């Protein structure tokens, strides 16, 4: 769909779990490409959007059975890569940002050291050099006083600041692909705007490929270039983000109509009627 060669190309991705009640398929044959752009994956809980992101990085739980016809990153077949090779790619060339920074950061380590460690691990740099890079990166994510923040522990920073630190940590190795799983859902709206602006700059200036996983249709419609709508483990609709309001799949339409809107008051919210045919 995108003109530029894809950074990530996924086809036939399936994630299944064996349970005492039979096989549960979380992701059921997903195909998409990501270029140097912002691709949003939206869906409700259980739609398989997070599991898709994790499976790409081989971070799905041990009990999951992951299959893919194609899982190609920058010309390399991730499905065939050894665990050792995956460790070299993960964190260096593909990074992941999770929803809650307070869970993802080490609570007993200064935040700046965590960023520096991420850099030193990947680049084999000296401590002083890693520190300089970390300070620089903290400034890039618009932390006003990086030297002061460097020495703080995670409990001393706000949610928005924590998420900026997470982003700094994920970006300091300069990855080509970033998978962000609900990166702003725990943040207030005004802080959210600034975190998104940082990601926006990285896509525009550094040519980062971004997979943006979210449940928030309005946010994805305004922030991303393209949107994939997932339902029950499948992509049911793919469209340009600006055209999401004119989506055609009844599930996407149903979601859009069930949302209360500030700009268009509704007497009563529509209730989504699920059609078993969507699962076929």
């Amino acid at each position, binding site marked *: 769909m995108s003109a530029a060669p894809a950074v990530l190309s996924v086809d036939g991705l399936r994630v299944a779990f064996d349970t005492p009640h039979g096989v549960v398929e979380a992701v059921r044959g997903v195909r998409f490409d990501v270029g140097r752009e912002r691709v949003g994956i939206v869906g*409700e*809980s259980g739609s398989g959007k997070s599991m898709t992101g994790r499976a790409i990085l081989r971070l799905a739980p041990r009990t999951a059975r992951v299959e893919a016809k194609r899982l190609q990153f920058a010309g390399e077949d991730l499905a065939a890569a050894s665990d050792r090779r995956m460790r070299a790619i993960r964190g260096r060339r593909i990074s992941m940002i999770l929803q809650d920074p307070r869970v993802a950061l080490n609570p007993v380590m200064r935040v700046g050291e965590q960023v520096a460690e991420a850099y030193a691990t990947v680049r084999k740099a000296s401590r002083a050099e890693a520190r300089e890079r970390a300070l620089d990166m903290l400034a890039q994510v*618009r932390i*006003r006083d990086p030297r002061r923040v460097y020495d703080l522990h995670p409990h001393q920073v706000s*949610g928005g600041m924590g998420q900026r630190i997470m982003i700094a940590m994920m970006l300091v190795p300069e990855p080509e692909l970033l998978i962000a799983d609900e990166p702003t859902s725990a943040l*207030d*709206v*005004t802080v*959210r*705007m*600034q975190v*998104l*602006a940082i990601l*926006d700059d990285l896509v525009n200036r550094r040519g980062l490929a971004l997979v943006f996983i979210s*449940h928030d*249709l*309005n*946010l994805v*419609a*305004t*922030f991303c270039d393209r949107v994939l709508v997932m339902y029950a483990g499948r992509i049911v609709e793919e469209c340009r983000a600006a055209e999401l309001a004119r989506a055609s799949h009844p599930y996407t339409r*149903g*979601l859009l109509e*069930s*949302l*209360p*809107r*500030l*700009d268009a*008051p*509704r007497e*009563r*919210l*529509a*209730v*989504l009627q699920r059609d078993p045919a969507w699962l076929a």
Partner: protein
Amino acid sequence: MNALLAIEHLSVDFGERRGTVRAVDDVSLAVGPGESYGLVGESGCGKSTVLRAICGLNRDWQGAIRLAGDALGPRRSPAMHRRIQMVFQDPYGSLHPRHTVDSILREPIAVHGLGDTNGRIRGVLDQVGLGPAFRFRFPHQLSGGQRQRVAIARALLLEPQLLLLDEPTSALDVSIQSEVLNLLADLRRERNLTYLFVSHDLAVIAHMCDRVGVMRAGRLIEETTAARLREGRADQAYTRRFVEASGGYDRALARAFADLEEAQA
């Protein structure tokens, strides 16, 4: 003054002498009978703390709270608790995991000695749109939306005058959110309930409420209406910024916010 709920100069402090944080700072507001009043603000602005003081979960506050003219003290009679009920944000945390729906609903009836347990439970389950089949299930056998319906049923059992709603749909998917918001709107109309509705989501607040109070850093900085919010009109710069940021991502706005933050620093 015939407000159902009147709050005057409410303040709540947390912490000891030196590290005291004023979570709610001199808040006054009034909610008329049958009205749905919205309280919005970002995390930490004190909106939930106001609710906790009203319903008696937080006993340490200054000021005055009146329900239909009766002053509420820090300690209250069971009869007073019956008149104010609360629905919490997280239906995964607010229902006892090892109690069935039946025993969850049975408890308030027993505590208040209401009688006709079976009839009441059947009636209230029907009202929140859960059939009798749900009565003997455990919370883990229910979806998020069904759990929130049980929490609403528990609050309604006692026939309260005032329902305090603390982000009742923010843990739910949007398709489930619309079901729960519709249910709350219907119940208010049918039973002439009064709502104090707390949320960080302006679209939800504008949909559910006519009058809206905006809180920031413990203070009620502006009282406005849903209609004014929809038009983007606001007296306070903060409220305008909040409305703009709720519209989704906007490059130019993001830059304006960053500049504003720098200017304030």
